[in-house]
């Protein structure tokens, strides 16, 4: 039995993240509806929760900062201050800062102390010094003195007249005497019953008695005070200390708290703080000095000890490390509705019943029971399928969690770009795999930024084009078959065919006289280094291009499609698998081996005519598919197998697409389509080129899942060799 709270830390971080989201969303909404008291209460509650719980784990920086936010929120909530845009903005910036503080508590990453300090002061200033309350002194020394060396006995005279409603608060004088008796010796206890009324008028639920007693103890004064903790303020209580003839008398007034969490250590204060405290310099002077303080990197560059490149590389590394640390502690925990678990337990129960019926049947099976057996098998299949679905659904989270960052992003973007933008979210409840949700955040962010920065026009330009001043970005998610579709839509200027074409010609991607159809032009923007933006802004053009978006999405087994109309807007449609653990695959046979091809990458399958194949020196074998030549890969050559057919006109060619490249892969036979569970090669064996993973097939044998990208590379290498 361990009474250690550290096991709850992960839960705290998860909960804190949720509360942060509530605070942020709430503040954004508050900007629109500054009078909404419910909203304020909600924000306050979340901030309050973060404060309370973070203190429990000794994250004092978090607790103290949240306390400052909470105090301001409380003033807003009580109507003592009005919600102004400036205050909302301050609170939003503070929320960001709080995020970094919590991250720091989680990963040990560093915190920008200057920002924390500045925001703390801004928060304090915004409260107009109105009754600033003290923060629980988590760092402070314990109020309870360590037990003194000698068994020194203190002696007290205690007179206690409790309030008459003592019992109504669930308090019992006996408890107090018991507690006193536990820590010392009670003597000469006398009860004063003079206030006791006549029996007829007596209210049995009231306390009419008061007491006097002598009390001897080795414990400190605070410990004695603590005994009366819950009643002191409302009682007439005198505790008179009789030590060395000197009498100390303390009336029952509010004393400082008697508890502090143990196990926290105080951090030495920075020099600047000490100087301010001792009055050597003023706070303003300190802040000014701090703002002039140079970063180590800058100093090193000035002294020519390092080049700016080296510094920026080191900084990059630092960031990567921080990001890595973050990933490392990204706990693999997931919160599941108890409902889902209950259903699962139910189903497992059913499975056990089916299993026992089957083993019972197997123990004394006769052939005439075959129909029963088949029926039970069907039942087993049903159970298994349902359990599979339920287990998968445990990993499913509503996509809203990935969407929640966008209102803030769009707000900031519109302020930065001087555009008026509204964000419309829909389909937030659509569920998909946790891993997928975590991985689509960045690509989505890029697409939204892209829409805000390049897609939407300035308000003037929009008015000139007879469009409403307010631009709209829509994010929508919905299920389609076994996939989830996410659309990022803007009603901006649309992609400019001529501009893209000109750029593509300039980069040598297409010939100058070529006139490709639209649907071949749009994907050009996914090429690395392709940007038609005239100027690089703070928002986009920071090296992360649309090519990364496409690569990320394809890495998840998804696709990106573009629909656009000049002057009307652009729609990016992301199509993603619901989960990464199971894929929809096509099983194919080469010789005696079975392989699985991810269904999403298959365009078509053909049986070529004789003469469609060409061998080009340096490019290997090509095949003519409707006037386009595609590289052809003979699977049996890549994996050194004994095939049934070596003649492509007798075998089957699968036309596969990956990252915009197409390739024809030759197999003996297509067996069928099925869902396969991906097993990692790296975890169970080692990485094998051209193989993305393995799975266990219906007959118990292992089937390999093809990695189309890897196959293409093998084909290229094979040619080069």
């Amino acid at each position, binding site marked *: 039995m361990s*009474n250690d709270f550290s096991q*709850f830390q992960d839960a705290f971080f998860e909960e804190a993240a949720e509360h942060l989201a509530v605070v942020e969303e709430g503040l954004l909404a508050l900007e629109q509806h500054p009078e909404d008291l419910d909203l304020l209460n909600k924000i306050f509650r979340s901030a*309050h*929760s973060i404060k309370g719980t973070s203190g429990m784990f000794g994250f004092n920086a978090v607790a103290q900062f949240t306390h400052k936010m909470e105090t301001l929120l409380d003033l807003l909530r009580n109507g003592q201050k009005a919600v102004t845009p400036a205050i909302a903005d301050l609170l939003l910036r503070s929320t960001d800062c709080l995020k970094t503080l919590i991250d720091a508590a989680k990963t040990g990453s560093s915190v920008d102390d200057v920002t924390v300090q500045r925001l703390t002061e801004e928060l304090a200033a915004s409260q107009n010094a109105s009754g600033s309350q*003290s923060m629980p002194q988590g760092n402070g020394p314990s109020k309870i003195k360590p037990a003194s060396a000698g068994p020194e006995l203190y002696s007290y005279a205690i007179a206690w007249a409790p309030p008459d409603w003592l019992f*109504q*608060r*669930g308090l*019992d004088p006996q408890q107090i005497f018991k507690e006193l008796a536990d820590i010392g010796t009670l003597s000469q206890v006398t009860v004063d019953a003079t206030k006791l009324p006549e029996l007829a008028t007596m209210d049995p639920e009231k306390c009419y008695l008061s007491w006097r007693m002598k009390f001897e103890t080795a414990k400190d004064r605070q410990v004695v005070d603590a*005994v009366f903790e819950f009643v002191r303020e409302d009682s007439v209580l005198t505790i008179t200390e009789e030590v060395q003839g000197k009498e100390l008398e303390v009336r029952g007034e509010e004393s400082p708290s008697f508890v502090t969490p143990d196990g926290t250590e105080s951090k030495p204060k920075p020099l600047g703080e000490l100087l301010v405290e001792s009055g050597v310099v003023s706070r303003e002077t300190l802040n000014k000095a701090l703002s002039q303080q140079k970063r180590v990197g800058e100093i090193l560059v000035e002294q020519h000890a390092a080049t700016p490149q080296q510094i920026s590389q080191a900084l990059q590394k630092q960031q990567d490390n921080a990001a890595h640390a973050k990933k490392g502690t990204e706990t693999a925990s997931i919160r599941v509705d108890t409902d889902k678990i209950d259903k699962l337990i139910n189903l497992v129960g059913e499975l056990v019943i089916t299993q026992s019926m089957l083993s019972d049947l197997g123990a004394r099976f006769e052939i005439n029971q075959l129909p029963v057996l088949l029926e039970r098998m069907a039942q087993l299949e049903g159970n298994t399928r349902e359990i599979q679905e339920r287990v998968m659904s445990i990993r499913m989270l509503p996509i809203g969690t990935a969407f929640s960052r966008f209102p803030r992003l769009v707000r900031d973007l519109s302020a930065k770009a001087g555009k008026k933008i509204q964000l419309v979210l829909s389909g937030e409840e659509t569920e998909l795999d946790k891993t997928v949700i975590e991985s689509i955040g960045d690509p989505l962010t890029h697409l939204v930024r892209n829409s805000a920065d390049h897609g939407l026009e300035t308000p003037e330009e929009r008015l000139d084009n007879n469009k409403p001043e307010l631009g709209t970005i829509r994010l929508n998610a919905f299920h389609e078959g076994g996939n989830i579709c996410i659309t990022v839509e803007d009603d901006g200027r649309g992609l400019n065919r001529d501009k893209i074409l000109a750029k593509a010609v300039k980069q040598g991607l297409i010939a100058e006289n070529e006139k490709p159809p639209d649907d071949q032009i749009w994907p050009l923007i996914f090429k690395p280094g392709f940007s038609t933006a005239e100027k690089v802004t703070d928002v986009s053009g920071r090296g992360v291009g649309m090519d990364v978006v496409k690569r990320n999405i394809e890495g998840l087994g998804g696709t990106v499609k573009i629909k656009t109309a000049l002057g009307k807007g652009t729609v990016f449609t992301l199509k993603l698998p619901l989960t990464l653990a199971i894929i929809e695959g096509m099983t194919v046979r080469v010789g005696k081996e079975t392989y699985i091809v991810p269904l999403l990458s298959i365009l078509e399958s053909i049986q070529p005519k004789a003469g469609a194949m060409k061998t080009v020196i340096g490019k290997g074998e090509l095949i003519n598919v409707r006037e386009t030549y595609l590289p052809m890969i003979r699977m049996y050559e890549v994996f050194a197998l004994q095939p049934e057919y070596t003649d492509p006109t007798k075998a089957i060619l699968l036309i596969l697409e990956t990252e915009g490249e197409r390739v024809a892969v030759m197999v003996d036979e297509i067996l069928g389509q099925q869902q396969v569970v991906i097993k990692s090669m790296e975890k169970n064996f080692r990485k094998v080129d051209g193989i993305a993973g393995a799975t266990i097939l219906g007959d118990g044998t292992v089937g390999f899942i093809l990695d189309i990208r890897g196959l293409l590379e093998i084909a290229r290498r094979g040619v080069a060799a």
Partner: protein
Amino acid sequence: MSKTALVVDDSPTMRQMVAFTLTNAGFKVVEAEHGRDAVAKVAGGPPVDIVVTDLNMPEMDGISLIKELRKMAAFKFTPILMLTTESAADKKQAGKEAGATGWIVKPFNPDLILKIIAKVLPT
């Protein structure tokens, strides 16, 4: 015979920590997310020996919960502890007026919760 504690807090982490501490100390713990949930849970549940409740909660806050409980015959003299932060001095007063027996100041450690409970729980 183990005692039953009702733990009311909207923060699952906080609730679990209190519940965990009490369970380890041999209590049977009934958890509730907020005041209304707590009222619903005590209605048909086992007799409760002690209540530990947060104050800031959605639906029904801690103060209202204490008032509701004190109206019930079964909770007339039951010790009710509120979880407070030190800064909320006015809340403490409001809690006392509503009938709270005492308070546990956050942040707390397991020993402190048990100590305070021992202080108010009739033996």
